[in-house]
Every structure is written in C-alpha cells, then in structure tokens.
C-alpha cells in the first residue's frame, strides 16, 4: 500500500511547473454581459443556449460532484470553483509553484447550434478570460475559444486574438458534429499552423451523437470512460484525413482525454492501415508516425495501472517528450503534482513532463 505521508513531498520543488489544464469559471452567467450585444443577451434570456442535450440547462450525464469540482475548491463566500482568482492563486499557483497555467474555459459556447450565437459567446469568453484572469495574473494564459462548427467565424476570432500575448493556444472540444479531420475544419488548422499556435483539444462537449456506436449508456461511470473515445476518434480522424500531411507543423495537445490508449491506437491503426492504405493514399507514413510527430497528451487524469511500473512502459511507447503535466484544477479528478505519478520519475523525466515539454510547444515569454 502506498502511503502518501511516506513519499517525498518535494518531488516537484523548483520545477517551476507548467500546468496545461486549468478551468476558470464564471461567477454568474452575467459575467459575460459586458461583451454581449443586447440582441444576444435577450436571446439567451429567452431561449437559453440551444445545444445537443435533453435538458434546457445542464449536460446529459449528471456528474458525481457539484460543478464537477473538488469539494475543497469552493472559494470563501460560495462563488463557483475556479471563479476567484485569489483563491486559485492560493490553492493552485502559489501552493504548487506553478509558473504558467493554461486556462481552458468549458462552459457552453463553442458547440451551440446557433452559429452566430456561438461566435458571439466565444468572443465574449475570450474578452472575459483577459479581463478576469490573464490581465491580472501573468502566470495564466488563455485559450482562444472559437465557434469551431463555423470555420470562417473561427478563423476571424483567431486572427482577432493571435497577437495578444494573453492567448497560448486555440481550444477545441473532443466532441464535435463531424470528426475533426473532415474538410470543414481545415481553415482552423490552417490558421493555427500559420500562426504556430498549438491546438488544445480538450475532452468533453455534447454534439448530439450517442456516446457509443451502440447508443446511450445509463450512467456517468460509463460516460466518463466513453469520453476518451471521442478523443480517440479525433486523433484517428486528424491522421486519416491527412490534416497532418497538409499541415505538417500543426501541434495538437489532447487534454484530459486519457493517454494509455495512445500507443495502442497507433498500433491498431498501423496494423489495419497496412492492409487498407489504398483507402487513404494521401498518407505518406504509417498513422503512428503522424501521431508521434503531431500529437501530445496532458497527464490528467493520471493513468493508474494495476502495477504502477507499467506506466513507464506506456510512456516509453508514447515518448517522454510528448507528455505535458496538467492538474485540471478545480475539477474533482484534479492531479496533485507531488503525488499524481504512481511510479517514480527521474529528475530529467520530471523536468520534461512538468515543464520543458510544455515550454517547447507554448510561447510563454
């Protein structure tokens, strides 16, 4: 049995961690109002934000914790977890010596069915990230929210934000109305590649399709797992459609999607591509070669093998340079940088995962 008490707690001291997944929250829906037109404020008040789920005001699978959050992450006074910058500083940035953190807002915006509304809300979220967080805290960087189902509006939003140092990446969601490799999304990849902006592909969203090719699971315990399949779909689609052939410098970071599956998916793709490559003649390399060149993963939620040392094999297979540490603060499946890894890491391995791999992707100076 592992005892946290007995483990060294200075494992990450002086690493100056880069956290690639922090979730900021609105104090209230009205926080976005300063950047929304009267038309959209009225629209939202009347119709809400039409998405792809059965409830008017919530996601399909109720989580197991309020706001999907750590129970100790509610700031004094009761505002939602992730909405209070001072509390975030104390509970995350200062406590763990995090030098840079990448914000990934997850509230509804980029998957709304009304594309004009989606564009307006995404733009407001971007302004809000700057006003509420990055302008006040230099350690934090924002993600450019885009209405990705509308590529033209998405490119316009990227162009609008790309010169602001506040933004570190373009954010996409692992559930989309078509697999992300399909041509309608290519202008987004073209813009990201052109500006050398990484894509932060975050787990989640609801796009109307059943979570499984066999339909709808009953429980959160199932959907929580099935989410990783949406990430596997996106990795497969980006590779097979030739996105990385067309944009060889594009960097896609798969955030919170699990990662033990990554080498396995590469092997499975390679094994069957060998027989079926006539279907995808635009690929010049085995699928796993694109994955090793263009895909990265963030660590949270940490993979916890039955035998802890097996994790080292998984990382060997993925590549130690492809893995970025993330806490997922303030969500319930948060990873503590001091204790998250079930196996021991060398100092050099820690440096890569907690810091230098992220430094190589994000422009953080």
């Amino acid at each position, binding site marked *: 049995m592992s005892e946290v008490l007995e483990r060294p707690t200075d494992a990450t001291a002086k690493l100056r961690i880069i956290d690639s997944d922090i979730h900021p929250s609105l104090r209230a829906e009205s926080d976005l109002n300063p950047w929304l037109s009267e038309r959209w404020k009225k629209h939202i008040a009347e119709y809400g934000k039409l998405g792809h789920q059965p409830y008017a005001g919530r996601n399909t699978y109720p989580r*197991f914790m309020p706001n999907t959050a750590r129970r100790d992450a509610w700031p004094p006074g009761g505002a939602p977890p992730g909405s209070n910058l001072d509390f975030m500083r104390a509970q995350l940035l200062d406590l763990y010596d995090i030098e840079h953190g990448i914000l990934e807002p997850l509230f509804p915006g980029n998957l709304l069915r009304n594309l004009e509304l989606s564009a307006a809300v995404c733009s407001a979220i971007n302004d809000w990230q700057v006003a509420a967080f990055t302008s006040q805290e230099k350690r934090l960087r924002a993600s450019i929210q885009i209405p990705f189902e509308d590529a033209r509006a998405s490119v316009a939003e990227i162009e609008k934000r790309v010169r602001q140092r506040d933004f570190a990446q373009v954010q996409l969601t692992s*559930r*989309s*109305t*078509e*697999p*992300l*490799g*399909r041509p309608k999304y290519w202008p987004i990849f073209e813009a990201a590649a052109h500006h050398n902006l990484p894509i932060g592909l975050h787990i989640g969203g609801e*796009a109307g*399709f*059943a*979570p*499984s*090719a*066999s*339909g*709808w*699971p*009953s*429980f*959160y*315990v*199932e959907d929580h*797992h*099935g989410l990783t*399949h*949406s990430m*596997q*779909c996106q990795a*497969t*689609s980006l590779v*097979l459609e030739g996105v990385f052939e067309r944009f060889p410098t594009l960097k896609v970071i798969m955030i919170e999607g*699990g990662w*033990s*599956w990554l080498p*396995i*998916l590469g*092997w*499975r*793709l390679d*094994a*069957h*591509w060998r*027989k*079926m490559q*006539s*279907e*995808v003649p635009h690929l010049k390399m085995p699928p796993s070669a694109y994955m090793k060149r263009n895909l990265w993963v963030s660590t949270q*939620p940490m*993979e*916890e*093998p*039955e*035998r802890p040392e*097996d994790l080292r*094999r*998984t990382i060997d*297979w993925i590549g130690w340079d492809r893995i970025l540490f993330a806490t997922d603060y303030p969500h*319930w499946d948060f990873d503590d940088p001091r204790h998250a890894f079930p196996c021991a890491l060398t100092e050099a391995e820690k440096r890569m995962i907690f810091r230098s791999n992220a430094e190589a992707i994000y422009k953080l100076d």
Partner: protein
Amino acid sequence: MAETIDCDIHPGVPTVKVLLPYMDAYWADAFVQRGMDGFDLASYPPGSPIACRPDWRRAGQKPGTDLAQLQSAALDAFGARFAICNPLYGGTVAVSETMGAAICSALNDWIAAEWLNADPRLRASIVVPAQAPHLAAEEIDRKAPDRRFVQVLLPAGAEMLYGKSYYWPIFEAAQRHGLPVGIHAGLMYRHAPTSNGWPSFHLHDYVAGAQVFEDQLLSLISEGTFLRYPGLRIVLLESGVTWLPGFIWRAIKTWRGVRAEVPWVKRSPAAYIREHVRLTMQPFDAPDDPAIVAQLLEEIGSDEMLLYATDWPHWQFEGERAVPPGFSPALLRRITVDNPLATYPRLQESIA
C-alpha cells in the same frame, strides 16, 4: 496432431437465395418478389481488404463461401480440431424485427445443413435478431438442442448497449442453455460509428470498433448483468486485444471514485472482466516485437482470457503467423486448447 480450437471463422453467405429453402413460404416468396438481396454487412464490404486475405480470395466469389477452401486453408493448415463458425450477415442488422428474425433463422438452419453436416470439425454460433430480444430468445431455444451450436452471436454495435434491461431475454436464454454470448465486431449503424459522427473511411470505422467493445463491457458491468446472470460468459470476437489493460485501468479508477452510482458493482471491474470475459486473439494489434507483446500479456493479468482464432477468411496476418511473437509455449497451449474448452462447455462434450 490436430488439436487447436479456432474460435472465430466466417463462412460467407453468397446470396440470400441460398437461404430461401430454409425460410417459410411467406419470406421465401417475399425475397424473390421484392428483389431483395445484398444483405452483406457494411462493416465488412465483401471487396475490402479486411474481408478476405488476398491468398484466400477467389475471383468471382464472396469471401468465405467455399467449404473446400475453409477445410484446407483454415482447418487443415492450422491443425484445427474444432472451428467455430460466426457468420456475419444482414439478419442481425435489419430494422424489421420479423425480416431480421427470418434471415437469422434461415442462416442457422443453412449453416447446420450445409457446413456443420459437411465437416465434423465445425461448430457454430446461433445468429439472433438482437433487434427483438424476445424473438432472439425463441431462436436460441429453437437451435440450442443441436449441441453443435456452442454460443449466441451478437453484433458489437446494436440499438442499445447490452446492459440495458431490454436485452435480458437474450441473456436469460443463453444462461438457460449454458451458452456463452459472443459479441462480434461490426455495427448495426443505428448510431454514428463514433461520438463525433460519421468518419470518412472504412479504416476509421474498423479501428474505432474496439471502442464499442469497451462500451459494451462497461455497460454489462455497470448495469449489473453479471450479477443477474452469474453464469454468463461473454466472448469478444475480433475485438482487438491490446486495448484491454488501459481500459481496465481507467475502469478501476472511475469505479473507485463514483461506484456509489452503481452500488451493486461490488467488485472491481477488473474482477468481473477476468471472470466473465474472453477475447479471441485476432487481431491482436501490437507491433511484431516479442518484448512488447509479452509486456501487454502481463498487463492483461490472466492467462485464461485469450482464445485462439484465425479469423478466416478475414485478413489479420500473413502466412501461418496466427499468433504474435512473444507467446510462451505454455500460453500457446492455453489459448489453443484449454481456454476454448473452458469457455465452450459444448466442445468438451464432443471430446468426452
């Protein structure tokens, strides 16, 4: 000595016409009158590389339709004592319950008459209309007395996940007859093949097929199917193998955190999987590196789970390399003989 047990081969249906003699008068007439044919599965387009290994393909014939080739290429070449036929055909995916049931029943009778009767090494799965569990249960009851039928066969992607109460009649019938339930790769296409909709390529569909098996296992565990039917044995056919350890890790981790949502799941998901679930080992989906294969086998954590299969005539390997490098002789013995006999009680009867 011929002693291996091949747990997944696929005799092909050349045309629905061969099934008509096994249908009742209405359906025998309807398929002709309406000009209905072409019920091959979209998951296995007959011309696609996955559907037939190049050296097993015969010009002008659909894959798997030649008994003599099955005997020489699958049974003799690999020294099979038994081989289990899992026909993949349109009855299992029809939207009409009654037409689906008619095709499935005819297929079962055709397999018995024209394949099982032709070679004593052959066994088969009972193909059922999962669209209509009550009809599926009737079909299981009808065919189970023929002891050469050794399992019930379902497609991996159905209308709902198999843990849902809708499917209880199928598992009840399987348990009643002591039959394992085999779930084979392939979709009904009632839902998009991925949670992001429709990929552009068959290759994507096929690769994504592994995820449906994960969904089905989680559904069976989370809904308590293994508690309702404690004798139930699930066999994943052509599922791929190497996804299993990572799947187990995440299933355990999630269960530890939110198990109170499904409090009847009293044991770790890994325990249910290792007790109730078996997998055929083609495709295996790993590099040709014995060290990696050995590592993955250790992570699977049980030498009782894998079942030998050639997947004939599907194209999974070259030549006679039906087993990846890295399997020890002891494990080889288990997967080719011991595990199949333990999984399929009716095979033991044939030997005794």
